[in-house]
């Protein structure tokens, strides 16, 4: 007997993500899903972003990692509420993991919730967690060939932060080639060259992000 299903494999996740999104809409919290490969500098970017935005916005953070609470400890030092999710092996966060840790955050007091996904250029792009936008980080030491090798994440992201630009003189990273490849995949993407370590270019990213957070608040 053949049974036609046409059943989405991620259907259960998408239902939970929709519930998360509805809750975030009710509370007026803008949710950012930050993705990249390991070591590109997501946590440092979050630290700088918090420093820049803390005077104007109430920020919360969810840290996703396979194990350890090291990133959460770093973020907690900035004085913002942070929850650590350990996936115990899973290479991405899903909507259920986000839902299960929301009671540890007071959404009524937040303007922006930043979710730092597990370091991985493939899976996090597949899983909707109910976020307002996906943003990815690519560091110049990883090489400019990544958009063509891992196109989905570039296609799904609204912004790309090209991190560690202070190291450009020591690499063969080609910024023009990168931009051309990224725009071929996603013509509407915003590109921000930054050095989180040196706090270069972070201001422009923060201003852009603030506008989006405010726009959601006003709705």
């Amino acid at each position, binding site marked *: *007997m*053949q*049974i*036609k*299903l*046409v*059943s*989405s*494999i*991620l*259907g*259960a*996740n998408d239902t939970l993500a929709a519930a998360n999104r509805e809750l975030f809409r009710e509370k007026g919290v803008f949710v950012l899903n930050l993705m990249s490969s390991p070591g590109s500098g997501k946590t440092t970017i979050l630290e700088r972003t918090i420093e820049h935005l803390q005077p104007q916005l109430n920020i919360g953070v969810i840290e996703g990692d396979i194990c350890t609470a090291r990133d959460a400890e770093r973020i907690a030092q900035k004085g913002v509420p942070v929850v650590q999710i350990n996936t115990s*092996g*899973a*290479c*991405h966060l899903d909507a259920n993991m986000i839902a299960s840790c929301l009671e540890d955050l007071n959404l009524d007091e937040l303007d922006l919730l930043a979710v730092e996904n597990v370091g*991985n*250029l*493939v*899976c996090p792009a*597949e899983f909707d967690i109910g976020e307002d936008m996906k943003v990815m980080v690519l560091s110049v030491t990883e090489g400019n060939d990544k*958009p*063509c090798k*891992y*196109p*989905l994440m570039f*296609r799904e992201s609204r912004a790309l932060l090209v991190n560690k630009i202070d190291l450009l003189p020591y690499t063969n990273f080609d910024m023009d080639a990168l931009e051309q490849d990224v*725009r*071929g*995949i*996603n*013509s*509407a993407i915003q590109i921000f060259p930054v050095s989180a370590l040196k706090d270069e270019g972070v201001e422009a990213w923060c201003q852009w992000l603030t506008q989006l957070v405010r726009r959601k608040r006003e709705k």
Partner: protein
Amino acid sequence: MNCMHELALMQGILDVVTKNAHSYGLRRITKIKLVIGKLRAVVPDSLEFCFTTLKEDIPLIAQGELEVEIKEIEGSCRRCSHQFLVEGYRFRCPQCQCTDIAVVSGSELYVDYIEGD
């Protein structure tokens, strides 16, 4: 890294299959047909490997085979409505050069049908 990705997806697939098999009263699954778009970055060999590994622990599926149909990426130009095959992940209309392209096909990820008795 890819294998982890396929493992998570295969767990989702087997959940969908098991649930449906129970509701249709199937006691043995002989075939699972999947449709996956090229945008999904799924490696069929990894998927097959994860299927073989996971099905061993599920008597319902242990004898089943997997068939995967891969769909090419097709785009539709939002300016001139031209439909075309997206090659090399270049989302640019070959007719009017516009880069505002909707994905018509290529992001599929579903169980098409199951066979069993």
